[in-house]
């Protein structure tokens, strides 16, 4: 499966087919989830209308963890099998992942103010999420800073794989340590503890975020395929023998 998509032409054909589908899923889910989340779902008996922050906070948190999982798998694929597109996939996921992690921190902080009476506490969930955000920034910096792409790719794969250690820490931090943050209420062994009237808009919003992530990654990888094509052509043009009149032969 992975080797099938390691061919840029095949990936391009797949992306051309999958991009509009992911865009359709995104818009369809948003069309239902936004009015449900902002208007039709009930307010919480304790938190009042601030519970509506959950519909943007929780999907962002889920996606920030899934996106790093994706980066780790792609980094491992690139590390072991040297698939040419695996690095591009991991790199394309880093920007959206960083924004999801940043949004989780921002919306969580704004939600925490009326709910906990503070914008920030250095507890395990919040701190591990901040570390995840900083790991994304570090991963992006590794790609951007180096002049030698092969070396940058090698280092980025290591950051992508090692950084994943933090993802289960983020997920289980509320179980392992005392935290102001509530326990898991959706992904639990005994099922979700949220009422269906809130679970539906939350699930649809999470699906919309997943579709957006898929679309962003497909677009990012397609961009990198075109960039490589252009770089190869430019190299070929530059390496042509120069004619006596100073122009490249055949130009």
């Amino acid at each position, binding site marked *: 499966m992975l080797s099938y998509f390691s061919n840029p032409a095949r990936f391009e054909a797949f992306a051309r087919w999958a991009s509009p589908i992911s865009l359709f899923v995104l818009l369809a889910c948003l069309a239902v989830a936004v009015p449900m989340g*902002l*208007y039709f779902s009930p*307010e919480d008996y304790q938190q*009042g*209308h*601030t519970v*509506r*922050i959950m519909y*943007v*906070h929780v999907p*962002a948190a889920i996606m920030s963890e899934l996106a790093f999982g994706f980066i780790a798998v792609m980094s491992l694929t690139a590390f072991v099998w040297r698939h040419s597109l695996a690095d591009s996939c991991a790199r394309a996921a880093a*920007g*959206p992942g960083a*924004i999801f992690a*940043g*949004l989780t921190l*921002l*919306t969580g902080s*704004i*939600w925490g*103010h*009326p709910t906990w009476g503070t914008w920030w506490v250095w507890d395990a969930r919040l701190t591990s999420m901040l570390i995840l955000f900083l790991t994304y920034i570090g991963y992006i910096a590794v790609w951007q800073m180096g002049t030698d792409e092969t070396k940058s790719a090698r280092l980025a794969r290591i950051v992508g794989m090692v950084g994943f250690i933090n993802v289960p820490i983020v997920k289980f931090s509320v179980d392992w340590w005392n935290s102001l943050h509530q326990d898991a209420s959706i992904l639990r062994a005994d099922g979700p503890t949220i009422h269906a009237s809130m679970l539906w808009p939350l699930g649809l919003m999470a699906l919309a*975020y997943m579709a*957006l992530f898929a*679309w*962003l990654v497909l*677009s*990012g990888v*397609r*961009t990198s395929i*075109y*960039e490589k*094509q*252009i770089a190869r*052509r430019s190299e070929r043009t530059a390496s042509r023998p120069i004619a006596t009149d100073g122009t490249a032969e*055949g*130009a």
Partner: protein
Amino acid sequence: MAEFFYMGGYAFHVWTCWGLSFVLLGGLAITRRRKLRHIAELARNMDVEAKAESTSP
């Protein structure tokens, strides 16, 4: 309607979170789409030039 925007006194908290989410994610989507269109056009132009070169005497 005013009650809807008031959000039970938490308008700042709720609307800021939703606004930030839509602006940041929408901004990223628009940036990626523009970049893809621009680079795809560049690649197409190079294709056209390469074909013209190969067919020219």
